[in-house]
Structures are given as C-alpha cells and as structure tokens.
C-alpha cells in the first residue's frame, strides 16, 4: 500500500489507528474502565443487599428520583443494576480485555507477525465495540432506566420491559458484530501469519487458547444475534416469537398475538452463552500457562494433552447448553443427554488444571507478582469448576437452581479465576507495552488484599445458596431463609467494598509506573516466546527482521544450555 510517510496526526495514531498494538491498548483501557464501572454497579447492589431499604451513603443523594427514594434504592434500579452488572462484566469487560486487549496485543507478537491479517477490520471491530458499549451506557439515562430483565433477558419479561431493553438488544448486536469481526481476524492471523518455523505444536498455549476462543465466538455468537433480532422484532414490531398465546398481565391481555415460545429464547441464548463461558475462561488459562511456564523455569508438563483437551473443550461446549434449563420442564431424555455431556466436558478442564499443577513439580519457582496471581488462579478456578459439578446434575440442581450457589460458582470461575488471570497478564506484559516494570510491593499488596476479599465475597455466597436463598432478590430478608443467613450477605458486601479499595494500589501502580524513569530490560522475565524477540516496546511493524523459530515455546532449563532459558527465536548449538 502506498500511503504517505508523513507523520500521522493524533487521530490516525491513537484513535483511528490500524496498528494492533494501539488497538490492543485501546481495548485494554476501555475494558478496564467498563470493569471498574461494573464494579461500581455491584457495590451499590451490595449496599441494598446488606442494608435493605436504608439510604445509600454518599451517592444516594446524588441519584435521581427514578432510581432512589430518599436515598434508598428502588427495585427497578436494583434490577437494572443486576442486569447491567452482568452484561457489562461479561460482554464489555472480560471478553474485550481477554480477547480484544491481550489477544490483539500479544497474538501477533507471539507468532512473529507484523500485524493482524486485516488491520482495518481490526479497527472496525474496536469501533463496533465502542458503539455497542456507548449504546448500553446511554440506556441508563432513559426514562425507564437501563435493561432490567437480568443479563439473560428471559422473554416474555424482557419483551414487555422498558425501553432500556431495546438499547440492550441494539448494544448486543454491535458487540456481537465486533466479536465476529475480531474472531475472523484472529483465526486468519494465527493460521496464516505464523513466523517461519513456528509450527502449530510450537505455538505458545496462549495462542492455542485464543484460536479456540475465536472459533467459539465465530460459531456461537450468530444464534444470539438471531435471538436479539427476534426479540427486537417482538419489542418493536409486536411479533410473537417468544410470546405464547393467551398472556395476561395484571388482568389485561398482553398486546402480542402469541404463537411463540419463551423457551426458544433460552435455547438460542444458552447456545451462545455456554460457549461464552469458555470464551471467558480459555484466554485466562492461556495467560496462566504462559506465566507459570515462565516462572517455574521448566517446560509446561503435558503441553500436547493440554492442547487436545482445549480443542475437545471447545467442541463439547456446543452441546451442553441445556444444562442451564433443567428446571424448565425438560423431559428426562433431554436432561440425561445434557447431564452426560456436562460430565464429559468437565474431564478436559480437569486435565488442563492437573497439567498446570504438575508443571510445578521439579520446577524452580520464582514469585513475581504475575506468578502470584497465576498461582491463585489454580485453586480459585478449582473451586469454581468443582462447584459446577452439583449444578451440572439435574437432581441437586433442583435445590441449587437460581440460588446464590450458582452466583458463587460462576463468580469463582470468572472473578478470582479469569480476572486474576487478567491481572497476571497485565503485570506480566506491562513491561512489553510500556517499557517499564510495575512496582513490586504495591503489586504484592494488591494481590494479597484482592485474594482475601475475593474469597470474602464469594465463599459466603456458597453457603447462602446451600441454605436456599434465591438470587436476584431485591431484599432477600423478606424470606425466612434470607433473614436467617443475613450475616453472610453483610460479610459478602463488606468484602466487596474492601475489594474495591484494594484496587487502589493497582490503579496507582498502573499510572505511576508508566512515568518511571528507569526502563525495564528488553526481556525482563527471561522468557522464551517470540514477543520478547523484538525491542520493548515493539516498533511499528513489530519486527525489524522477521523472526525464525527453532524450538518449542517453553525451552527453560535445558541441560547444557548457557542460561536457564533458550528462546524460540535463537538457534541452539547442538
């Protein structure tokens, strides 16, 4: 392409850039802001749960009359917070951070490519993400508030909900389009732009996880796109795809003609949303694998079984969706099928986790901040995975369905699981992006506080769920059971607020470290993978000379080598 060599303006270099590194940073900053916003929504919810009906301190007086009454939260606002917390965290926080930010920044570097295969498509996918995000956010200012039917948006409740739901659907359509474009880009990039010598089984595990994730996004998102279009039609054109015949609301017939099925929405939604769970966790696993291999100074144990497990996991994730629907009146044949597939899909997760754990045996383990987060990921994800077991079986699910046990379960997977993996990634690759190291004492403070309070939030939820407290209750104390375990709720809330405070060291660290004078070394972690083959931070075009790969991704502590790491891009004397 013959574009001018003139210095690019601010807009072209930072806003409408096609450089994958800039786009990766844009994704990262946006996603972190959304995560922080989602955290704020959660803190308000936790106030209502711990002190039902009491005025929210400080901000209670600032919110409008449609949201609070004398500073105390209204049920409509609570439901909006619940729905938007889930949506923002999943679709606008973790996925853009894990795939958009880490994927964009690291993937081309780790495979030795000059950029993504389609740089302009990459920019378009970021823009679609921003538009979707803004549509979602703007719904908070609508008369009826933001979407309030849960992040699952079950029909018919969502079809008859306020305008916020329409914005939710339009926002989702943009976010889905963004993910689809991104997925195409990642797959082509990983298949076509690998450096010379970088065969598939020399790919770092992180690249594998991104490849599988991209396939999940590519093939699972379209059904949700369809579902969103159907629901938009139901809302705007009064069709009845999700509206059965004979609906009566408050004594009056509902406007919809009928003939549809509320379960159709659930099927289409979970057909996406179960693979989506793996979209949330797989990139996290990839990052953890990188960090553990690097800091245990030995090759990952069982790299190939891990890759095969990953592929199998991706494939199986498409045939377990209905285990979210055991309690919808499904027949025993269907539930038997889905119980079996659910048990099968747990095996590859166990294999991956076991391989990561065994990798520690015989290692020489260093404990920098990213390694702390990566190590904490293992037991935390373990708890999340194990508690999935009773939920995957229909009979115990008859007790646990839609209780706090479910909330505790999936938060253990995504919060101390994925988010810890994301922190590990941030601490690990921060020097690559900025050329500076993050402050270690602040990082350790951040880790230990987060670790304690994460568990402080979610462990009580397990017990609340065990006791039988339902989720999504504006005020759980109206039930005898909810009142009996209210102490647990309060503990959870205080942990949540303290967790938010524990992020202050991280935020300070994140911004202060950027302005540090002292530069990081070119390869501060003595890592073997290709992103360290170029200067830090990498120049435009990434590599001055296209790198050539001579060995597998984790050649640490090779006997007879001059140092304890043998980078992929350096030919070893043999």
């Amino acid at each position: 392409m013959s574009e001018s060599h003139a210095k690019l303006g601010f807009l072209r270099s930072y806003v409408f850039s096609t450089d994958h590194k800039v786009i990766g940073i844009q994704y990262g900053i946006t996603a972190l802001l959304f995560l922080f916003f989602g955290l704020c929504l959660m803190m308000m919810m936790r106030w209502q749960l711990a002190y039902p009906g009491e005025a929210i301190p400080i901000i209670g007086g600032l919110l409008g009359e449609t949201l609070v009454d004398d500073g105390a939260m209204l049920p409509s606002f609570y439901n909006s917070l619940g729905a938007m917390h889930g949506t923002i965290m999943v679709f606008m926080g973790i996925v853009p951070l894990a795939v958009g930010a880490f994927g964009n920044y690291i993937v081309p570097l780790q495979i030795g490519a000059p950029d993504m295969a389609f740089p302009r498509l990459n920019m378009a996918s970021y823009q679609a993400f921003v538009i979707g995000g803004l549509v979602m956010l703007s719904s908070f200012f609508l008369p009826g508030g933001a979407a309030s039917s849960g992040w699952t948006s079950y029909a018919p409740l969502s079809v008859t909900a306020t305008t916020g739901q329409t914005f939710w659907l339009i926002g989702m359509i943009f976010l889905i389009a963004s993910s689809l474009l991104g997925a195409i880009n990642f797959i082509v990039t990983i298949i076509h732009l690998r450096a010379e010598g970088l065969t598939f089984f020399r790919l770092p595990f992180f690249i594998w996880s991104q490849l599988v994730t991209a396939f999940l996004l590519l093939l699972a998102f379209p059904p949700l796109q369809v579902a969103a279009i159907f629901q938009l039609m139901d809302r705007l054109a009064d069709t009845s795809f999700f509206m059965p015949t004979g609906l009566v609301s408050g004594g009056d017939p509902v406007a919809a003609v009928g003939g549809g099925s509320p379960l159709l929405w659930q099927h289409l939604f979970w057909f996406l949303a179960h693979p989506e769970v793996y979209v949330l966790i797989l990139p996290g696993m990839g990052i953890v694998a990188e960090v553990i291999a690097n800091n245990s100074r030995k090759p990952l144990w069982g790299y190939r079984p891990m890759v095969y497990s990953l592929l199998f996991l991706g494939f199986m994730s498409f045939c377990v969706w209905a285990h979210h629907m055991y309690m919808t009146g499904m027949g025993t044949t269907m539930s038997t099928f889905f119980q079996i597939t659910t048990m099968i899909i747990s095996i590859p997760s166990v294999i991956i986790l076991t391989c990561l754990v065994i990798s520690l045996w015989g290692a020489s383990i260093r404990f920098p901040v990213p390694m702390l987060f990566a190590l904490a990921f293992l037991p935390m994800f373990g708890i999340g995975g194990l508690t999935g077991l009773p939920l995957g079986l229909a009979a115990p699910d008859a007790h646990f369905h839609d209780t706090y046990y479910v909330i505790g379960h999936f938060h253990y997977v995504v919060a101390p699981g994925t988010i810890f993996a994301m922190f590990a990634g941030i601490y690990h690759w921060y020097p690559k992006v900025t050329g500076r190291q993050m402050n270690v004492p602040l990082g350790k403070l951040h880790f230990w506080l987060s670790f304690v309070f994460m568990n402080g939030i979610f462990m009580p939820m397990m017990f609340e769920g065990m006791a039988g407290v339902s989720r999504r209750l504006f005020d759980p104390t109206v039930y005898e059971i909810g009142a009996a375990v209210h102490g647990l709720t309060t503990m959870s809330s205080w942990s949540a607020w303290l967790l938010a405070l524990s992020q202050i060291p991280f935020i300070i660290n994140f911004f202060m470290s950027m302005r540090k004078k002292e530069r990081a070394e070119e390869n501060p972690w003595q890592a073997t993978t290709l992103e360290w083959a170029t200067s830090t931070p990498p120049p435009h075009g990434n590599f001055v000379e296209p790198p050539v790969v001579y060995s597998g991704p984790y050649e640490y502590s090779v006997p007879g080598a001059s140092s304890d790491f043998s980078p992929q891009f350096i030919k070893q004397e043999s």
Partner: protein
Amino acid sequence: MNDPQYGWWLPPDVSVHGADIDFMINAIHWFMLALFIFWGGFIVYCLIRFRARPGHVAIYRDIEAKWNRWLEIGVAVAETVVLVVFAMPVWAKIKDDLPLAPEQDAMVVRVVAEQFKWLFHYPGRDGTFGKTGPEFYADDNPAGLDFDDEAGWDDITVRGFHFPVDRPVIARLTAKDVIHSFKIPVMRITQDVVPGMEITIWFQAKETGRFQVGCAQLCGLGHYEMKANLVIESKEDFQKWLDEEHEALGLDE
C-alpha cells in the same frame, strides 16, 4: 407449628424425595473437598519444595507422573458413578414417576403464577377442576375459571399453599404473564413456570410445618416479594381447612 432452623448448610428437609438429593449434595461436596485438599496440598508442597533458591535448578525432562492419569480416571469414574447410580435414577423418579394410580390417592392442585403472587387452586369437594382458560382471567377470577362450568363452582382458590403430609401431591403449574419459578427449599423443589405451558410435578411431605414458597426466576419489580405461606399439616387438619374454605364459598346456603 415448628420453627425451622436455617443455617449455613442445607435447610431442613421435609420431603420424601429430598433425602436422595441431600445425600448426593453431601457426597459430592465431600468428594470436592477431598479433591481440593489434595490439589491444594500438592500445590503448596511444590511451592515450598521447588522454590527458586541459589543452587536449585529446574528439571527439564518430563516428569514421569502416572498418578495424574489415575486422578483423572478417578474423577471420571466418580462422576460416572454419581451420574449413573444417583443422578439419573433420582431425577427420573422425581420427574417421571407421577403417582397417577388411584390407590396412591394423590391430591391434585393447580398453581397459577402471576406478577407477583401465587394462586393455589383446589378442585373442591367434587374432586374435579372447573374449566379454565386464559380468556377468563379477571381481577375477581385469578384462576381463570369458566363460571358456566358447574364443576368449578366448588373450586377453592387461595393465596396460601396447604397440603397434607404423607400423601402425594400433583401440582400443575401455569403462569399468566412471565416465567416464574416455583421454589420450596425445604421440599427440595424448583420448577420454572413457563407461560403458555402447563408443567406437572409431584412431591410428598414427610413432616408437617409452616414454611414459605418463593419465586426463583426474575419476574419483574416485585419478584422479591413473590412468596406464599406454606402449611404442611396432618390429614385431619388439612380436611378441616378444606371444610372451612368450602363453607366460606357459601354454596350450601
């Protein structure tokens, strides 16, 4: 009247089928705990024994670990056992073995869910439900009864749920507006109530007591308040309650 003790673990169980579920939940959690302690112990041991220190070098060659395969096979076997021996038969019994035979003497009740109330519809003395349909729903007719149908004249519709102990209950669940979920924690029951469908479940209590029915599926602004009182009583007390409700209909005057 007893005062159920709710705490950090499972709530009291007054249902006949609940023991199986509770056994599964407890067994799975012991299994989980064992696995977690094993994994956690292994990690901690590794972190201490293989920490980086001067003179310590990581082992490059593959560690020969056989036990991991045994662990994975063990997990798979345990899951298969739980699945085949417990999960599937228990669930099939709960779902499919409806006590329809006359000698089982099941009591049938319609449960109608709407924003944000439960309605319990008993067939009355004639043992037959009146004709119902969505077109008959009105403020003074929340059960949607067709008043032209004589079978419905003695039907009892109430907001609190009463049923007798030691007798199977068949509940036919319908929703008027959105998806609700019929949940009684002490009975180990959760069943989504989907508008446009009638879903049939059954259960049987083994103890009497006063509890609560709740809604477990987000159904709108008043979702959190959508509860009903539940009275499980002896057959005599239940009959007495039915008689009182029947008299309140005023049909005999």
